[in-house]
């Protein structure tokens, strides 16, 4: 009995990819490559975020230093203007709190900035030695 001759089979010489298969493969490959390209966007976003945070930290640091040069008694319980102060696109609101009898001023500095339409806020605080208030 000849099994081979009775089984229908594809023509081996024509075995291959159809154009549809090839196009699908190319599309998938392109998506992969575009994914690689998209990492650039992620890096840019992260770098921008880093810039904002570093500017925020510098602004807070400078504010703390400026407050340090002031007079303890005069600064007690003072705060920033209601609208805050804006430096390099970051806005800060600070408050200086002195508890009667304590030897320190507490300084709070809230920094806010916009990243891609979203508001981000960071709070820095520090304590300064002071004559008894």
């Amino acid at each position: 009995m000849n099994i081979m001759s009775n089984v229908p089979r594809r023509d081996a010489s024509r075995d291959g990819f159809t154009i549809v298969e090839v196009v699908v493969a190319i599309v998938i490959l392109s998506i992969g490559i575009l994914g690689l390209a998209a990492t650039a966007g992620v890096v840019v976003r992260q770098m921008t975020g880093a810039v904002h945070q570093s500017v925020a930290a510098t602004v807070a640091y400078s504010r703390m230093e400026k407050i340090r040069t002031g007079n303890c008694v005069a600064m007690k319980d003072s705060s920033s203007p209601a609208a805050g102060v804006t430096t390099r696109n970051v806005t800060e609101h600070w408050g200086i709190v002195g508890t009667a009898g304590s030897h320190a001023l507490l300084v709070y500095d809230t920094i806010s900035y916009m990243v891609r339409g979203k508001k981000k806020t960071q709070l820095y605080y520090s304590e300064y030695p002071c004559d008894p208030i």
Partner: protein
Amino acid sequence: MRSHLSPPRRAGFSLAEIMVALVLLGIVATGIMTVIMRQQQFYRSATEVIDTRQQIRQATAVVPVDVRGVSSVGGDILNMSDSSLDVRGNIGSGVVCSHTANSVTIPPLNLVNNRYFTTFLTRPKVNDVIIILDDKAAGNADDDWIPYTISAIDSTLGGCVNFTDIALDATKYRYRYTFSTNLSTTIVDGAPLRMARGVKYSIYKSASDNLWWMGYRECRGDGSGCAAVQPVSGPYRAYAANDTVNSGVSFVYRDSTGAVTASKIDVARVELFVHGETQSPVALGGGQIALYRDYVKVTIAIRNRQ
């Protein structure tokens, strides 16, 4: 029994198939190469931008350390300009253990019972300065820190009985500093003292690479005997006189009211502006190729001010 007696037909691609495949491959390969080239350019640019930011931050990390502790009212600011700042940095502290008309002896370093009256970051040399508290008359209003320039340094086993154990510290050498001028007659044993050496920060152009760097050099406490300038951070943008918006490094000095001052004893805070840029044009998306510039401004409050 074999179904075919003739040789099998050779499987293969037709010319048209090969052409189509090559064209498609070409298109895809071009796309991939473009993406990879852009990626490479992007990451090189990103690295340069990050380097530039790091260099800027570095300057604002090193300068405050020396500047913060100076006493402007005590004359610690030796010279100041928009491109450089020359201050006396602390290198040690101690107390006057015993003194003569023109010398002081300080306690040995490691006394018994783990007591420490003397600390050194670096040991003072001749022409460094020791600043001693002069109590003067009763009350605090007239107290003053007076700088004395060291003219000779000896170590001795004699003197300094006040802060030492006569038996257990007897073999410990103590430093005796002789000054070029006589001490104020109202300086007493037990007065605190601090040792200072000149440190200078300035923006300078390196002769070897023609780039602008933040330079650091040490001088003796009286401003003499300066070492060669060394780069501490950079490179930055070129120096431009009195231009805080473009100059690589600029210093601005303010008094306690916030007004710009040229008087060294009135300085209450120092503003440091650092501007940097990448060494070559960078492309961070959008295909725009340009030098990337960034800056940092920090305020340094001087702790011992008027």
